[in-house]
């Protein structure tokens, strides 16, 4: 490691509702700030190039890949990671349905997947199947085959799955 040439920046932001301040290089990836400086290791690194979604967080309520956000651009913002979904130890609805319906297997994609789902449901509380697929399309899962994840999102909204959608899901499962 060569010596730091660029002075550190003080980044003040709110993470999972708590005011935090870190001194980091301005180009340090938000992903690394969260994992290394704040020890929020629920944020995962998959591809590191914005294609897999496992580092997804909400930045001022907007879904982003934290591997592509430099620390300086998070200054003054609010960040929500998977650690902030539960309140007082009680799982959020989306976490509960992922748990109950097998929406998670190895778990690497799960935090990002739940934040993508959270972002989708905040914007569109009644997404149809196509909207769910589009909302989660930036998040790759290598275990579940996606069907149980989609089920989990549907159930998080306590919405009945339409007959034709169920038929489509069944057809894919076969």
């Amino acid at each position, binding site marked *: 490691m060569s010596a730091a040439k660029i002075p550190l920046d003080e980044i003040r932001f709110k993470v999972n509702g708590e005011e935090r301040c870190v001194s980091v*290089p301005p180009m340090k990836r938000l992903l690394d700030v969260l994992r290394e400086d704040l020890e929020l290791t629920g944020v995962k690194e998959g591809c590191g190039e914005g294609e897999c979604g496992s580092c997804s967080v909400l930045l001022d309520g907007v879904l*982003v*890949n934290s591997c592509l956000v430099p620390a300086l651009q998070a200054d003054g913002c609010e960040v929500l990671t998977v650690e902030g979904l539960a309140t007082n130890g009680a799982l959020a609805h989306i976490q509960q349905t992922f748990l109950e319906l097998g929406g998670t297997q190895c778990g690497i994609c799960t935090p990002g997947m739940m934040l993508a789902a959270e972002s989708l449901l905040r914007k569109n509380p009644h997404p149809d199947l196509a909207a769910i697929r589009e909302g989660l399309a930036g998040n790759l899962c290598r275990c579940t085959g996606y069907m149980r994840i989609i089920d989990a999102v549907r159930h998080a909204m306590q919405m009945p799955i339409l007959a034709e959608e169920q038929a489509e899901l069944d057809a894919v499962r076969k």
Partner: protein
Amino acid sequence: MRSNVSEYELVAPGSLSAVLALMAAEPGAWTLMAGGTELMVALGAGRLAQRKLVSLWGIDELRRITTSNDWLTIGAGATFTDIRENEIIAKEFPLMARAASWTGAIANQNRGTLGGNIVNASPAADSPPVLLVYEAEIELASAQGTRRMKYSDFHLEYKRTVMQPQELVMAVHLPRGRRLPVEYLRKVGTRNALAISKIALAGVGAMQSGKVQTVRIAAASLRETPARLLATEAALLDHALTSERILAARKVLLQEVKPIDDIRSTANYRAYVAANLLEEFLMQMAASEG
């Protein structure tokens, strides 16, 4: 190899005038970064050569989408999400909204900007073919002032544009009230979300009395820059769209395009799919007049 982030400078002057002053003081020294969806990938992969970066994120004056009687103006800092969600764009320039909807997945659309898509100057970028068929103009700014030109004059050769070192893209202007009855846009890629196109074709046009009255066609990944297919257009103008004419236009297109073999596809595949997309567009044109 991961880059050593402590070697990179990033400043956020916070206003357009402050950014322009910085660029004027040291022309060419600073690289602009908006949402980071291109440059941060290079950083992660250890191949970001530029060490002095200026953040454009959060400069509201670059992010506005506004209208006058004759023009819709999209600030260079508008994200693809901003473009998708704009009602006037959806109504008057639907191809623009569609291209935005398949520029990466949601998280990328939330950060990627129109200006970044343009200055990155990839021949595969999603927005340029649409800007070309809508006859967009582009506005550049420097500390000396602004200049505006046809977007079709912006790209010079592979990854090279008319921009001077002290300039940035401020906005793109789309002419209103000139919508044509047929609009076509199709991207062929490996998957819907996140896939960079193997090829994309945009077309707009109108028929009159059985003949092509107006037609504009542009493509991604078929030449070294995003490009209008002017010879193909000329082969169609004032002609009835008979099967012979469509075949002739396919041949002109195959001569006009210069696709390459690369990681995403082959030159042959690109050329023949492009001809098929042209035909699909021309079938829609032919069916448009009663």
